[in-house]
């Protein structure tokens, strides 16, 4: 059983977490200028990197989304951090 870190709750069992998306995507704007190809890539395109990956995960028990940096081959967790932006 692997332990993942939640920036809010600390180390927890991997079964409490769910992968959400690759980190770093920016919504293309303004909408009228966005081609179908660019929009499809935003919705569906992934890098699926081998090695270091920055990913958005959610800790299901506290409901917080955060960024986790992992190695996708060794499964080593390198860091985790709350999503940037102001808390509301």
């Amino acid at each position, binding site marked *: 059983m692997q332990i993942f870190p939640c920036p809010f709750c600390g180390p927890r069992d991997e079964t409490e977490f769910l992968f959400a998306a690759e980190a770093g995507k920016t919504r293309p704007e303004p909408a009228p200028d966005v081609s*179908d190809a660019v929009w*499809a890539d935003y919705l569906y*395109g992934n890098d699926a990197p081998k090695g270091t990956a920055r*990913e958005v995960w959610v800790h299901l028990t506290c409901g917080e989304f955060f960024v986790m940096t992992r190695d996708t081959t060794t499964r080593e967790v390198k860091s985790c951090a709350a999503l940037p932006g102001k808390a509301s």
Partner: protein
Amino acid sequence: MQRYSAFSLLREGLSGHRGWRPAWTKAKPKSAYDAVIVGGGGHGLATAYYLAENHGLTRVAVLERGWIGGGNTGRNTTAVRSNYFYPESVALYDLSLRLYEGLSKELNYNVMLSQRGMLIAAHTPAQMEICARIANAMQINGVDGRLMSADEAQRRIPLLNQTEGARFKCLGGVWQGRAGVARHDAVAWGYARAASALGVDIIENCTVKDLTIEAGQITGVETNLGPIRTNRVGLAAAGATPGLAAMAGVRLPIHTYALQAFVSEPVKPILDTVLLYLGTGTYVSQSDKGELVFGGGLDRVPTHGQKGNLPAQETVISGLLEMFPAFAQLKLLRQWAGVVDVVPDSSPVIGPVGPAGLFVNCGWGTGGFKAIPAGGWLLSHLMATGEHHEISRPFDLDRFEHGRLIDEAAGSGIAH
């Protein structure tokens, strides 16, 4: 090619088995080919075979970074079936099943296809309604499928836990009689042997390091064994496809996950069909050696490592024991994982991508083995003609731009 027959087996048996020759030639790369296929699993080898057999293209190389059939082709649970929901999917998977039905004869290689039937079992009235919907869809799409009652399921699978208080008491399900299992190694080896006999070069331990692109056209590949010139490249590399496509600046709608499989110690015949339980997500069949071969859903952690995690193991094994309490006595012999390429709509991506001359056959996720003959048939058609076969057209990458997803996970409710 040395043809295999009852007579050749008898002759070799009487002469001490000294006359068998290697089934295929281990080739060194030439400087140029008419077509290069990256990935020496079932899909890549089938593509090479059909390029030569259907399209007369024999200056073809298959580049495999490890050994042929050592990836997902040798890591699956060997089920073949076409019990899907959408017409596009049924056309695709039933083409594959029909090709499987003739494959041993076509390749002169026994792929040990055993059409022992498959039951998708339900344990709630709502699931039975879904099963009826799938059975109806299959019949409308011209494939053998029917609803099976709880009594018949119990007769076919007597060890199923049907006691009072069983957590997943079987109410019946969808039955496809033509579904079954085939020996996965034999599928890779049979295609390799037949392709090699037609002149295809199968090159193992050959890693593609880069794709060469000039003025929007593929002109070759860089490998650890040197450069190879070609103007047609087909990618059939499952979980490695995103990294290869990235060399041409192409992003695919793929996440890579580990999918695990398990075999138990061998026991006498106790299960003569393939069973998938909707309630537990676990599927199981018994191999010719007597081992129970089983698996379930994905590990939920994106990975490129061919190893599985413990939570998924616990889910799969506990699901198996809910269905068959008697199996708790068995010991596990082996457990392993493959890296599968999962797409949001659980349907493959087949078509041209990026620069001219580059084609992909990927996104099969957890269901690639059953699709090997069709994947090879359709990718070879694309590479030879530059045009889609009518069956592969709906599976082009452009469906993500047009919003015409073929969502089999939602449609058939089958684990992929």
